[in-house]
Every structure is written in structure tokens, then in C-alpha cells.
């Protein structure tokens, strides 16, 4: 194993990928148990699960593209689009369930006006809750989060593949790096977040620093791993 210029590029790619995952998680609207009971906006599950779901879809899409070409751009694009499709489908079906099954209005108590449509929010928010549905801005924010997560996952997967030429090893290793960054970011969020309009979003710099240190150590190790035989 020799550390040439290309290896340094690979390390940098993995670090940037990890940072994209860590910051991208902040865009993904997650409400946990309160959202499952329609007392908060967002998807009713943990941040890590949702981020991992979109990231893994992006990883699969990137892996599929990588089986066809070695060009980095289509690989990154398919990773990002794959993750976006997954998160958008989740948000859309979640919205249907809120609207047609639970009968809850789309509203958020964290802002007075929807930043995208400009509609007033407080009249539709049930007292004692922080909103009920998945408003437009959460959908848009989730799409951005999916884009960043998928791009980050693909950016981790690509250099690993170039180093060890083993798709399964690279994918599982990428999942490992992905999970470490997603968990650190979700610890920073401390549970629920609605997206870029959420006050908690301002804390992203802490996650950025955490993910930088963690991914740096992982990347230094990752580039030494060979693909077996």
C-alpha cells in the first residue's frame, strides 16, 4: 500500500462523502413517535433509519451504474437520484396516509408561514402539537437531504471500488461509514427535525465537525483495505 496522489484524492472523496451524509441527514424531516401519532410533522421513524434507507437506495443505484461505467459523474448522479426517489416516495405516501387515512391537516407549528407557498400555518395546528402533516417545505427539504445523502454514499462507494474492486466489500464498508455519519448527525439533531426551516437546523456545524473527524479516521483506514484474493 503506497500513499500516492491518487490515494489522497480517494481519501478526500470519502471525507466529502461522509460530510455530505452528515449534513444531508439534517434536511431529512423525521418526527419519530410523535409523528407516527400525527402530533408532529415529518416521517414517523428514527433519523438513522430514514437516512440509511435513502442512502442504501442511492448506494444500490450507484452500484448498478458502476457495473456499466467507470465514469464518476453518472455514478454520482444515479446515487443522488436513487436516494431522492426513495425519500420522495416515502414523503408522498406518508402524506397520503396523513391526509386520507389519519385525516390530519398538513401544518407545522415551527413556522408561522409556509416558506414555499406562504400559507398561514397556526390556524391549522391542533393545540398542544407541533403540527400534524408533512408540509411542502419538509418534502422539498427531504428531497435535498436525499440528494446529499445519495451523493455522499456514492462518493464513498466510488473510491472504495477503485481501490479494492470488490462491489460487496465496498458496499458494506460504505454502509458502515454511512451509518457512523448518520448516527452522529442524528445525535446532533436529538431526535426530531422538520428540515431547513427547523430551528435545530442551525446546529449543523457541530455535526460537520464531528463527521469530519470520524470520516477522516475511517477514510485513512478504508484506503488500506484490499479486495481479498
Amino acid at each position: 500500500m503506497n500513499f500516492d496522489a491518487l490515494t489522497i484524492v480517494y481519501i478526500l472523496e470519502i471525507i466529502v462523502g461522509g460530510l455530505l451524509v452528515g449534513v444531508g441527514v439534517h434536511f431529512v424531516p423525521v418526527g419519530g413517535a410523535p409523528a407516527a401519532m400525527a402530533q408532529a410533522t415529518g416521517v414517523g421513524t428514527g433519523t438513522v433509519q430514514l437516512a440509511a434507507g435513502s442512502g442504501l437506495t442511492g448506494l444500490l443505484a450507484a452500484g448498478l451504474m458502476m457495473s456499466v461505467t467507470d465514469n464518476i459523474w453518472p455514478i454520482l448522479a444515479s446515487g443522488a437520484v436513487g436516494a431522492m426517489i426513495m425519500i420522495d416516495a416515502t414523503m408522498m405516501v406518508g402524506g397520503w396516509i396523513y391526509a386520507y387515512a389519519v385525516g390530519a391537516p398538513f401544518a407545522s407549528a415551527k413556522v408561522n408561514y409556509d416558506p414555499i407557498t406562504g400559507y398561514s400555518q397556526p390556524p391549522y395546528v391542533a393545540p398542544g402539537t407541533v403540527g400534524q402533516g408533512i408540509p411542502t417545505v419538509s418534502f422539498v427539504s427531504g428531497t435535498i437531504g436525499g440528494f446529499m445523502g445519495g451523493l455522499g454514499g456514492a462518493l464513498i462507494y466510488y473510491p472504495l471500488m477503485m481501490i479494492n474492486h470488490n462491489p460487496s466489500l465496498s458496499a458494506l464498508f460504505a454502509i458502515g461509514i454511512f451509518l457512523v455519519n448518520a448516527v452522529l448527525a442524528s445525535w446532533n439533531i436529538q431526535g426530531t427535525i422538520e428540515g431547513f426551516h427547523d430551528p435545530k437546523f442551525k446546529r449543523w456545524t457541530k455535526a460537520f465537525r464531528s463527521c469530519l473527524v470520524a470520516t477522516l479516521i475511517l477514510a485513512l483506514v478504508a484506503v488500506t483495505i484490499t479486495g481479498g484474493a
Partner: protein
Amino acid sequence: MTVAGGAPTAPAAIPAEKLRIYGLGGALVGIYLAAVLNSVLDTDIFSVLAAVGAVAAAVTGANAVRRVCGYGIGTGVPSIGMLALGMGIVGASFGFSTAQQLGVSMAGVIIALVYAMVFGYIVGTIANKVLGFGIPIMEEGLTDLSGAGAMAIIGWSYAISGSLAYVDLVDKVFNTGYLAIVFICGGLAILHPFNANLGPDEKQDRTLVNGLMVGSLAVVAVGLCSLATLSAAAALITIIIGAAAWYYFYVWYYRLVKRDAAAVVGTGLLPPSAL
């Protein structure tokens, strides 16, 4: 009552230091014993010892989850279990790959354990210093957790590959995709016990016995995987020992649940005047 062994009364809490030594040490012993016996006797039927060692590591992990999550981390227990396996998988593949490049494949387990624990300590420091958790045992807990994740993955992977060589690991565990099963079953063994038992009446023995139970199920799962990679005898031994252990710990766990459950007291029918 003496159902399926175990102390009849609730044992005193086991200190974390002891569990760490038993769990991580037990996993090391199990894996190396399996490796030595397999190579000396030129067989693969001792692979089950590594799987049993991995259960010990998973219990250490479950105890670390219990200690850290007892403070409340705000994101739900599953996230920390996924972190353990995420850190563990990186540590495991780094350990084995480095050992192979150095030409001493037997050292892979030690390298993986040391790297995983150092990395866990760093992540714990980040969580406290940068993210501002302020959990006094965060560094210690994540060190345990990361080491346990790595040892669980290595132990169960060994039960599938039957060899400590990196090439066999990649060929039989990574490329076949069985590592995904190890990942999920191992993650469950670490994160599920506290997730299932948390609450004001959470007791250490009940949580850890639940960990042993879920870990035994993981042994059955890797036994099923090893049907395709090892000899039928080795796979069957792993499956049978896993299933027997699961039954044993299931009965034990059920007894502890009954011990800790609130009493249901019959109050009789309502008096006629109330109807």
C-alpha cells in the same frame, strides 16, 4: 423454582468492567479456540465456538447500550446499535486486511478489536466534546460498543467462513452477502435487549438474558448460512447449539419477565349495588 438453571433470585448487578472482560475476552477465546482446534484437527466443526464467543461480545454490547441509553440520547435505541455495527464492520475488515498484508492472518482479530475500541473512544469523545452530550460514560460505553460490534461481526463471520484468512472472509462472507445477515442479526442482539426492556423497571439481568436469547437466534441464522459454505456437520452443530441455547435463554427470560411483571390481583365481581 428451578427452571432451566440460573439463579433463583435476582442476582446483583454485574459491573461493566467484569462484563467487558468476560464478553470481549470470551469472544477472543472463542474465536481463537475455534481457529486453533479447526486447523489442528483439520476440520470445521469447531466453528460454533466462534459463534458462541460472538454472543458473549454481543452481551457486552447490549450492556453498553443499556448504560449509554439509560441517560437518554434522544434518537431511540436502534441508532446506537447501528453505530456499533457500522464501527465494527470497518474495524473487522481493516483488521483482517491488515493482518493478511502483514502475513499473520491470526492477528486480524486483535488488530480489529484494538482499532474498533480506539475508534469507539474517539467517537465517544466527539459525542461529548463536540455534540455536547455530557454523558460521563459515553467514551467508555462507545469503546465497549465498538469493540463488541467488531467481535460480534468477526465471530459470526468466522462461523460462516470457518477460517481467519481474509481471502476466505471476503469470498464466503462478503461476496455471498451473508454479512448482511450477520449485520442485521448482530445489530438486533446488541440493540434489541435494552429497546425491548427499557422503562422504569428495567433490570440488568433481564436485559442481558434477552441479549443472550437474541444472540442465540443469530447463531441459528449464521448456522443456516454456513450450510452453503461449511460441511453439513459443522452447520448442523451450529444450528442445534444455537437453537438449544435460544430455548434455554427463552425459558430463563420468560421467568425473569414473570418475576418483574406487575401482579394481577383478582378483585372479584362488582357488588350488585354498583351494577
